[in-house]
């Protein structure tokens, strides 16, 4: 097998669209923080993006198939780091999510575990021999994702834990999910969610999580509490109108964290329906481009890796933009590539590095 890779096969178009989104993000971070104590965040964001692009090139060089062969070690390391968080983690805002690294940086293992899970799921389904998914495969895949998911949930970090779900769902779906299985799982999930909310004795969610989830159903019930954020976000988006407005929600600090979780609301307020739809379109182009790369992947594993990235990205967009327009509860999930934050940016570029990795080897066979 000749191992020939070239940057001619690197997906420059995809990178272009991705950097376009990052650029819009940096712009909006600047606009939203310029008069606050976070001023200058956009410069740090640029550094993170540059670092991310560098990391992407590095990752694209390592053959993903070699990575997949070692995935069990990565998986063990990932789960180990999650355990380390639970034991040694830094407690902030009532949750242990970070490990303090020497040098003052905070390391959030749950982000990297996401990447490991994409690879692990890809490896698992690529190696599967049947066209149709058996219940035992189904359960094994579920356990593979479910175990770290529960650990993240225990931190507690509901938002990140939820982002593991689409990885499993995408894997199972592409891996040959049968209708019966799909219906059964959907039914069980429905019952489970119902139990969490309706049975008072089940304490899976913390009360603030429950409140966040219920407040989005009727934000005006609790305008100063967690419903406040949803309501302010809707006002920001709505007041942007067709062409965008003055941005008083963003600059008057009515919109919570406009540089991270609510960056899309800030952008929508300042650039209106046209601008917001434009950004969604670019995201859609990126996702379609990724799916196309999945189709041209050299092997099953490559397809699963790329589609894993697609699943995570789509889920992030759905939950974040859905939250901003009031369709989804506040879960603290950032908008990939736009929201300020090193972990989030680095994760996306590493994931894109995996995609590039797969694409650059599409003619290898």
């Amino acid at each position, binding site marked *: 097998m000749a191992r020939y890779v070239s940057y001619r096969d690197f997906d420059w178009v995809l990178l272009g669209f991705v950097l376009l989104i990052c650029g819009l993000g940096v712009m909006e971070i600047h606009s939203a923080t310029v008069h606050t104590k976070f001023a200058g965040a956009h410069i740090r964001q640029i550094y993170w993006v540059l670092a991310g692009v560098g990391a992407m090139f590095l990752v694209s060089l390592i053959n993903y198939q070699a990575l997949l062969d070692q995935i069990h070690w990565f998986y063990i390391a990932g789960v180990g780091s999650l355990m380390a968080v639970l034991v040694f983690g830094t407690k902030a805002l009532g949750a242990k999510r970070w490990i303090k690294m020497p040098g003052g940086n905070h390391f959030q293992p749950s982000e990297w575990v996401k990447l490991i899970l994409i690879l692990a799921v890809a490896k698992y389904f*690529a*190696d599967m*021999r*049947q*066209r149709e998914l058996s219940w035992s495969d189904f359960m094994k895949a579920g356990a593979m994702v479910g175990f770290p998911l529960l650990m993240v949930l225990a931190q507690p970090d509901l938002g990140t834990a939820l982002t593991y779900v689409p990885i499993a769902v*995408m894997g199972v*779906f*592409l891996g*040959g999910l049968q209708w019966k299985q799909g219906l059964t799982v959907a039914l069980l999930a429905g019952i489970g969610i119902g139990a969490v909310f309706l049975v008072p004795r089940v304490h899976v969610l913390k009360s603030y999580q429950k409140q966040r989830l219920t407040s989005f159903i009727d934000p005006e019930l609790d305008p100063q509490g967690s419903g406040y954020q949803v309501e*302010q976000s*809707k*006002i*920001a*988006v*709505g*007041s*942007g*109108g*067709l062409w965008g*407005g003055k941005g*008083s*929600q963003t600059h*008057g*600090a*009515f919109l919570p964290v406009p540089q991270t979780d609510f960056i899309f609301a800030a952008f*929508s307020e300042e650039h*209106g*329906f046209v601008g*917001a*739809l434009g950004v*969604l379109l670019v*995201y*859609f182009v990126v*996702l*379609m481009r990724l*799916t196309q790369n*999945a*189709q041209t992947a050299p*092997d*099953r594993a490559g*397809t*699963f890796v790329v*589609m894993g990235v*697609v699943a995570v990205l*789509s889920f992030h*967009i*759905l939950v974040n*933009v*859905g939250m901003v*327009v*009031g*369709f989804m509860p506040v879960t603290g999930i950032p908008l990939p590539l736009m929201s300020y934050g090193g972990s989030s940016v680095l994760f996306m570029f590493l994931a894109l590095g995996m995609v590039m990795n797969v694409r650059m080897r599409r003619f290898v*066979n």
Partner: protein
Amino acid sequence: MFGRDEKVSAIRLTAAQYIILGIFLVLAYGLWRLQVAQSDYYSLAAEKNRIRNVPVLAPRGKILDREGRTIVDNYPSFSALLLRDSTRDLTADADSIAQGLHLDPNEVRARIRHFATMPQYQPIFLKEDITPDELQFIEAHRNELPELDTIMAHRRLYPRNGFMAHMIGYVGEVSEDMLNQPQFELYNSGDVVGISGVERQYNTLLMGQNGSRQALVDSHGREVGRLGETEAVPGKQLKLTVDIDLQIAAEEALGDKNGAIVAMDPHTGEILAMVSRPTFDPNDFAVHVSRDQWNKLVTDPDKPLLNKAIQAQLAPGSTFKVIMSFAGWQEGIAQNMHVHCNGSADFYGRNSKCWVYFLHQSHGDVDLAKAIYQSCDVFFYTLADKLGINRIAKYATQLGLGQKTGIDLPQEASGIVPSEEWKLRNFRQKWYAGETIFVGIGQGAITVTPVQLLRAISAISMGGKMVVPHVINPTDLPPNYLEAAHITDVKTVAFDPSGWNYITDAMERVLEPGGTSPLAAIPGIEIAGKTGSAQVVSLENRAKHKDNADLAQNGWFVGFSPRRNPDVVVCVLFQGGEHGKLAARLATQVIKAYVEKQRRNPQKMVEKPKSNGAVDVGALWTEPGSEGEKERLQGGRFVLDLPKKPLATAIAAPGMR
């Protein structure tokens, strides 16, 4: 079975693409719904979020005397506050702050602790209405103690020591009770309104129209800019009919005795002076009145908050004999009546004594004139018996007794004129003819307020011209106000001119030798009047408890000057004054002050401050040069944006509602 290189189902990949498309369509719909379909609603919500209407308080109108001298003014009052969004360690500075502001350092620290959990942008109020010294301290330590700041509000400045306090009244925050009354329905809670006196009566004129300012705020309520402003319309300046010079004379005459003095122009009804004692200092309410202080005022048996000039309802005593004379004359009885007084007389099986009985004297033969200037009880017992209670009531009512005079001050009392019908209605009892006898000398069931008595005697002195007493200069009132107030209405009561001359002549002799009060006379000033001593208990009982001051008689005097076509009528109530002749001396002092001022020979005029010094004699003036309209508007523009309630120009006394 498929190998490692077998592709993933293309259909499923395409399905994934359609699912993603579906997600994006839903999100796009979400954006469309907010930004296109309901854009107007959310734009409005965003505006409402960031624009706050802050009221701009209108300064209350000044209150002036009849010559335009300031009685009530506003002054800029500073409050010291502690800003907490600075990074300084407030507790460490507490000592120096406490020292500069004359506070207890522990109390300052306690306040800082107490507010620790409140939002940072809310300042802590340390001290209201700080002194110039303390203001100086804050200004001088801007660099060392940057967290100290001041905020200014206009407060009401009243004359000191309770000068004119009852008539002027005071302001306070509108209470829940008041808001439920129709005349206050347009006000909002937190508004400062007049609570009593002129401040209450003419509140709508004095208050002006609050403006509003549209402020841009951020999500913490911090003001980040302003859009526009509707200026406040300052309250109307009101000119009273009171003459400060005469008011001072009246205040000094009454001193710290209990009672009231009212002086009025009998031609117009203009009140020239009005005093009630004991008094209170309305400035105590303008900043803060402690609960103790308030309770003391409310529970004081001498009722310092009561304006006795219009609210004290007491037996008129012998002053009522003037009204009896009027009634007797109009009925054609009194002028022909001759009575022999030997100290007492029997009526309805009871021996009724004349006041001279207790001096072991008698009046001998008495006609109407002598009955007036000697105040013979036996004569008026007889006259009362002849008139009967219903005719007495008729003439008393004609002269405005038993009803409100209509003076433009709140909560006037109406007094009582007893009659057969009155007793039947209120006690379901028949009137006994024996009771009439005592009404004849102003005792028994009859009660009057000083201002009623003043008005009645004024009418007699003017030959039947009845005016409505009022304190506001009518030309200062808007026409619709004037119409509703009826303060310039004049009635004429039929009074035979010969009776008028006869009775007022007799009243002049009251202050001559042989009258009841010769010592009150003032050489060179013609004064007519009538003394009165109203018993609190019967004279027999009184004689038994000579030393009990609570049982002392109330002294009255109603007088006017000159005898014909008088310029001024004065009524004095000297509670516990024992005898009308003491009240007469107070009244003549006021009349003297009036006459001397008329003769351009002022005995004691208030002078404007020589330098910038403050005026001590009751009234006050704004410092020269600071009276410009602009400056006052400036005051109105000031606004306190406090989280709870706007700092008013005054704070309501606790328990006021």
